[in-house]
């Protein structure tokens, strides 16, 4: 691929995000260490509210690691150490007094491989609201489940078989179920770690369409290996390389007129 990737004129790329939009998430001097390994070096980033931000970069560049800092999923890795300052709505998420469980209720996550629980479709979506005590009655819960499945564009496909196992769905449906599961907790931010890497092109297209709709209500951060996908769904893009955030800007600027030569080389397919 020697020419710049072509663009489809979707709503995603025509909407121009500006720095004037209030940043939902801010990272300042973020460093991550895995034992001796310095995985993320001095990353500074502002992620605007109700938009899609894409992290791109070659494998091992630290983009997933940074994503996992935003809901503190790295806490589960004993040798992992995070320094610097990450704030959501001005609130330091690494504050001692912050309850990580509450943080994760505000920051949902969708993983690389669809991972529905081996429970019914209904129970998968109801799981989050139940553990957080978000609903009082069965009727309310039914409603939450229905809304979440509708928002994840899965309702029409599963409404007649809510009691069947979630693991019996197709890969793309499973991933949308996982998105519904995250939405059901009413998060403010949704983190997506290569959500389409295990899916075929048709299922991928559906998820991308969904992401585009979801940005009206949620702040979305997506890690992707597909530059076309970043171009299609995001308003802003950050390019990571060897643990450094090389460049960050409006998606069409990054893809048409990158400032850094490393970004240019990567998006034109010269390396990575």
């Amino acid at each position: 691929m020697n020419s710049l990737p072509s663009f489809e004129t979707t709503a995603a790329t025509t909407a121009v995000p500006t720095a004037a939009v209030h940043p939902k998430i801010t990272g300042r001097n973020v460093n991550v260490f895995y034992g001796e390994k310095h995985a993320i070096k001095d990353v500074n980033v502002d992620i605007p509210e109700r938009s899609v931000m894409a992290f791109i970069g070659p494998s091992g560049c630290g983009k997933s690691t940074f994503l996992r800092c935003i809901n503190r999923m790295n806490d589960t890795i004993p040798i992992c150490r995070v320094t610097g300052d990450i704030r959501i709505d001005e609130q330091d998420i690494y504050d001692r007094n912050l309850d990580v469980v509450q943080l994760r209720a505000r920051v949902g996550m969708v993983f690389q491989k669809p991972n529905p629980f081996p429970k019914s479709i209904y129970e998968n979506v109801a799981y989050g609201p139940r553990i957080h005590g978000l609903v009082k009655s069965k009727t309310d819960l039914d409603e939450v489940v229905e809304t979440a499945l509708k928002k994840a564009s899965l309702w029409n496909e599963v409404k007649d078989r809510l009691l069947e196992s979630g693991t019996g769905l197709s890969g793309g449906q499973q991933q949308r179920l996982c998105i519904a599961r995250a939405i059901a907790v009413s998060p403010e931010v949704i983190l997506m770690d290569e959500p389409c890497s295990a899916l075929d092109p048709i299922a991928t297209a559906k998820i991308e369409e969904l992401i585009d709709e979801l940005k009206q209500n949620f702040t979305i951060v997506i890690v992707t290996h597909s530059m076309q996908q970043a171009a299609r769904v995001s308003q802003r893009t950050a390019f990571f390389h060897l643990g450094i955030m090389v460049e960050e800007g409006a998606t069409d600027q990054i893809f048409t007129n990158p400032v850094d030569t490393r970004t240019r080389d990567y998006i034109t397919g010269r390396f990575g």
Partner: protein
Amino acid sequence: MFLTLFGILVAIAIACHLAGRRRSIALAGSNYAALHSLPGYYGAWLAIMTVGPALIVLVVWSIAAPNVLRSMVLSQFSAQLATSSVAQLDGFWRDIQAIAFGGTAGIRDAVRSDAAAVLSSRAATSTTMMIVLMAAVGVAGFVYAWNAIAPAFRSRHRVESVVKVLLAVSATIAILTTIGIVVSLIAESMRFFSMVSPIDFLFGLTWTPQQMAFRADQVGGTAAFGFIPLLTGTLLITFIAMVVAAPLGIMAAVYLSDYATPKVRAVGKPVLEILAGIPTVVYGFFAALTVAPFIRNSGHALGLDVSSESALAAGVVMGIMIVPFVSSLSDDVINAVPQSLRDGSAGLGATKSETIRKVVLPAALPGIVSALVLAVSRAMGETMIVVMAAGLAANLTLNPLEAVTTITVQIGTLLTGDQEFDSPKTLAAFGLGLVLFVITLSLNLVALRVVNKYREQYD
């Protein structure tokens, strides 16, 4: 004799292997790549063809010869033995063997000495014939295989098909042994059920086989073979064991798989598994000497009447014994639950305990259930602890503080000591064995089905 010949055959096999190998390389000459198979296969082929038939002759002859010799010698002396019973014939045969080959003969008389002389000469002839036959088939096999060796000869295929036959024979032996045991169990049980009605056995409420008269001339009480007290005893002790083992084992497994640091796990898991290595008889005297008195004394302190041998003591100790069984299997299935499910749950803001209770354990449940079922069949088959801690009294009770007995213990008691083998008292052991076999077999089948269902879910 057998061992010497076997040793010689092994030596010949090694020599043939080397010779066949060398011959194949020599025949191939400079065109080594033209050999169809690696040289070792030619060596193996030569060794198999030389030693294999001779080995078969050796084994078959060694098994068949004693019986053939016996009938030959006994028929020669049939006139003198015409009035002998089967048992007397057996005795006669043992005596002449002892006289001929050394040993202590019960009776030495002229007839026996004559017979022994005949036997030893026949035995010598038999051995000679066997060695000649072995040498003949060995040489024939060697010549055939030696000439067959050529670069184009597909020795690998031949050797592999021989190996395949060996594998099939091994599997057959294992299966036939199982079938043999089951068939003899059923046959002996049938003999028992012809003396005691199956209805009385399966539904009777008293178990007093010791009342049975030993010999016809003794006056016996009324023996009763109702197996229900044994079944309730077995179930009671198994239930107590599972009440102890299931929570302890599962909670230990959850701790080791999800909470323990890698260091603790590396030490804790093997230590827990050492429990499984303690001989059950050690658990038995632990139960009888430590736990049972402790339970009795605490019972008395509470004003309860506890017998010194109680179902509770045996059950508790048995429960401890099967903890590692439950924890080890549960730990494996809990670990098999994919990390992605734990991440997915944590990503939704679930705490670790919520994740374990609501995602991990339900996902691992089929595996845990099968672990528990296997533990139950293990507990039912356990004998030693019960002998020492729960006693022999076949009480029909559900009170864990009383002495009870189990199926396995009664099998042991029925068959120990000098017994006639055709009385219902001894044969009852086979009836009990059959029932126990059916129970554990069905439990294992259930466990297997559950495990298979579990596998379908994740592959």
